[in-house]
């Protein structure tokens, strides 16, 4: 069997499991996100990523942006509201996204540098 088909089957099964867990426990988190966490735990327990799952996940990740196109086209249903409130919406989306990108990148870079500095020093201080 093609590794892609086997891998895609596993991804769907984990999605089903995620949907089931999310539904039964009444979680606010959608099934696929729970499925991702379940698959992650399973991969960590096995300590190895099966080729089939790797192939299928990589194929989907490569064109992840395609999968958002149908939802994006939904913009056409809201032209009325968007033209009425276009200024607050556009300014909020653009400015907030730029600020969030800058804050997140600066925070991560600064914290990562600090974490790596202390980790690099730690073995030396043990001696």
């Amino acid at each position, binding site marked *: 069997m093609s590794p892609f088909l086997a891998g895609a089957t596993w*991804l769907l099964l*984990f*999605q089903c499991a995620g949907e089931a867990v999310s539904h039964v426990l009444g*979680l*606010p*988190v*959608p099934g*696929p*996100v729970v499925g*991702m*966490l379940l*698959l*992650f735990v399973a991969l*960590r327990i096995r300590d190895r*990523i099966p080729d089939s*799952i790797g192939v299928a*996940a*990589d194929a*989907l*990740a*490569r064109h*992840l*942006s*395609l*999968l*958002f*196109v*149908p*939802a*994006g*086209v*939904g*913009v*056409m249903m*809201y032209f009325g509201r968007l033209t009425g*409130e276009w*200024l*607050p*919406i556009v*300014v*909020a*989306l653009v*400015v*907030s*996204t*730029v*600020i*969030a*990108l*800058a*804050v*997140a*990148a600066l*925070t*991560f*870079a600064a*914290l*990562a540098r600090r*974490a790596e500095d202390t*980790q690099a020093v730690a073995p030396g201080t043990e001696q």
Partner: protein
Amino acid sequence: MTSESIFELWVYLAATPLAGLAITLVAYVTGYAIYTKANLHPLANPVLIAVIAIVTCLRVGDVAYGTYFAGAQFVHFLLGPAVVGLAVPLARAWPTVRRLAVPVAGTLALGSAVALATAVGIAWALGASPETLASLAPKSVTAPIAMGIAERIGGVAALAAVFAVATGIIGAALGKFVFDAVGVRDWRARGFALGLAAHGIGTARAFQVNPEAGTYAGLAFGMHGALAAFVLPLLWRLAQLATGKL
């Protein structure tokens, strides 16, 4: 063929799910070809090109979104397994990610708070309606999660999906310029910021540019989605109590 029979054929094809599926793929493949031709220039985002092309076609052909979505849902459906599959790059990178627990948790907390507060604050200051504010709140979270959150806090699910996709496109298009401007060269930081602020579309962009950036983007995207689904409705309720709007 008479023009009448061509018209009948058009009506027949436009009403089948095949048309919606085909136009989605044709628009994306074309958008991606332009993106490649432009050396992956962030402003030539393939999602943006595809959405503009499809909306234009549907408007010109007077086709309803529901008719289009009957076909496009097959592409939309793959979002589920694709999100599940994000566990794979995460599992691959886990040994390194684990050592960066503090940067990951700290950036997640600060970044998600900033994304939420600035979006709602700016739109509120410029006079957006409460329904629009509630739909804007989860804009940095991936569309399927944003829809669920918006519904719980009094927004419109479909509008939240549109804002989320728009945010993803804006983040993917502007990320490079923002990171260069603030002088962050670390691929992990750039990727993490893209995934956090611009969810799946930012993650897709990160994977296209650098595999390490992609891995950290996927990590941020997944964690932000899970965190926001639990925390954002609670924060929203607290903010309502604080401002006296019960």
